[in-house]
């Protein structure tokens, strides 16, 4: 480790996790996360106002814990990075206000960075420097985006995203249809492993004819979700037995198939040999399997960070901040505004 490399403190507060991490170069020194998930449990999901208040309470203790874990003090910090979008306005505001105060008080540069691109950037801490260009598939409860990354600090092109439900959200809804507890994603995944993925031919959204031509890299999981609902209603109305494991497996197959097929088509079209998969939904076992299998066949290297770096965390923001510092990108202004629907082509808020 070169001691001369700048120490970057990253703050993540776009949703319900308060994350703070310290990164020097590509080395992660500390990564601490506080989650308000328990406080949301009675709603069966995130409640924006509850999340903002929880961030407010968690931010300072989380910063202190991260500094202690890294064995550094605030005086050692050379730059502050914060996820200033996309996300929930109240949550973003708490983290961004905290980051501004730190940057101003310490007299160091501030970087307002893109949360979704952070999900890709974090992989550099795990698997080393990125190749010249790669594709990033970011999939979670709130996002399903396909990005062409020419340079993670300066040049990211959004190829596509979901037009309705995110992949993780579709899993939660199908979990509910199958009577599984919230959040449904991990439960559906577990059930799917015992079922036959070819048992039911569920539709692949935006994958044929005119729709595919119009939306080559966009996703749609709403029609799939409806097809599952109608399949279950059909069995109930007919008084027929069905296999919940087969439903889960066939549904999982449809989601993974569309994600991997569209991603590999983009790899071929843009002549890209590396794929980074990030976001909480990258924990899905069928997605991992299918991506590994088909990417190997296509000669594309797949990089997926360990799951603790796929869910929301401070390391992803510090990693992206560090990449920005390394690339010599100008810092963001101290009066930068949070952006709940930040464009995915915007890596950081410009000076």
């Amino acid at each position, binding site marked *: 480790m070169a001691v001369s490399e700048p120490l970057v403190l990253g703050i993540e507060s776009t949703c319900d996790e308060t994350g703070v991490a310290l990164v020097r170069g590509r080395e992660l020194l500390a990564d601490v996360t506080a989650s308000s998930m328990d406080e949301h449990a*009675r*709603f*069966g*999901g*995130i*409640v*924006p*106002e*509850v999340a903002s208040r929880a961030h407010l309470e968690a931010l300072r203790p989380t910063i202190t814990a991260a500094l202690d874990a890294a064995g550094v003090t605030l005086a050692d910090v050379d730059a502050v990075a914060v996820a200033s979008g996309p996300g*929930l*306005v109240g949550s973003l505001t708490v983290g961004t206000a905290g980051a501004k105060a730190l940057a101003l008080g310490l007299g160091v540069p501030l970087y307002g960075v893109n949360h979704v691109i952070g999900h890709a950037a974090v992989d550099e801490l795990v698997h080393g420097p990125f190749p010249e260009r790669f594709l990033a598939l970011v999939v979670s*409860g*709130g996002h399903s985006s396909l990005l062409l990354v020419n340079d993670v600090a300066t040049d990211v092109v959004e190829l596509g*995203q*979901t*037009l*309705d*439900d*995110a992949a*993780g*959200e579709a899993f*939660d*809804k199908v979990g509910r*249809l199958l009577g599984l507890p*919230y959040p449904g994603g991990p439960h559906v995944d577990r059930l799917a492993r015992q079922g036959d993925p070819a048992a039911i031919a569920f539709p692949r959204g935006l994958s044929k004819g005119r729709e595919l031509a119009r939306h080559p890299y966009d996703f749609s999981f*709403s*029609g799939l*979700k*409806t*097809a599952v*609902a*109608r*399949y279950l*209603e*059909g*069995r*109930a*109305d*007919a008084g027929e037995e069905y296999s919940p494991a087969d439903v889960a497996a066939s549904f999982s197959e449809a989601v993974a198939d569309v994600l991997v097929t569209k991603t590999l088509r983009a790899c071929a079209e843009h002549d890209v040999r590396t794929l980074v998969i990030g976001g909480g939904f990258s924990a899905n076992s069928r997605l991992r399997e299918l991506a590994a299998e088909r990417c190997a066949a296509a000669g594309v290297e797949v990089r997926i960070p360990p799951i603790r770096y796929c869910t929301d965390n401070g390391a992803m923001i510090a990693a992206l901040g560090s990449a920005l510092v390394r690339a010599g990108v100008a810092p963001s202004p101290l009066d930068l505004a949070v952006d*709940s*629907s930040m464009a995915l082509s915007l890596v950081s808020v410009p000076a």
Partner: protein
Amino acid sequence: MVTDVVRLHLADAEATAALGAALARVLRAGDLVILTGDLGAGKTTLTQGLGRALGVRGQVASPTFVIAREHAPLADGPGLVHVDAYRLGGLTELDALDLDSSLAESVTVVEWGAGLTETLAEDRLDVVIDRARGDAVDEGRQVSVRGIGARWDGVDLAAALQA
């Protein structure tokens, strides 16, 4: 204080979005729309058409994960508050969302909200979307729309929506 029910048949998703756009022409700041229908009925599709016609910022997508999404207006006119009440169990939980703060300046669309949100406003537009169940081949949707409260007195919904 309740208008006649306007009944419509929507052939496909485009027709659902077009009904959203037609609704946008009669809605104004402070209005509440309660959108009821099974999973997959087309509630988000209708709201996407409404958002496009209102001219609001950001992509209108499913609000389930975040419960409520706020879309600011791109020009003059109301913004859009898009709420998914699917995961809420009752009125006290709805209060925790602090929805009242933005109701006056926006059109508020509550998905799956029947029986939960009526106390937010005495005036509201009820939109119910039915899709075929189970193995039936019909891909169309049956929709009924009615206005409730003084806001909708004398408003010719049938003319506005069937044009």
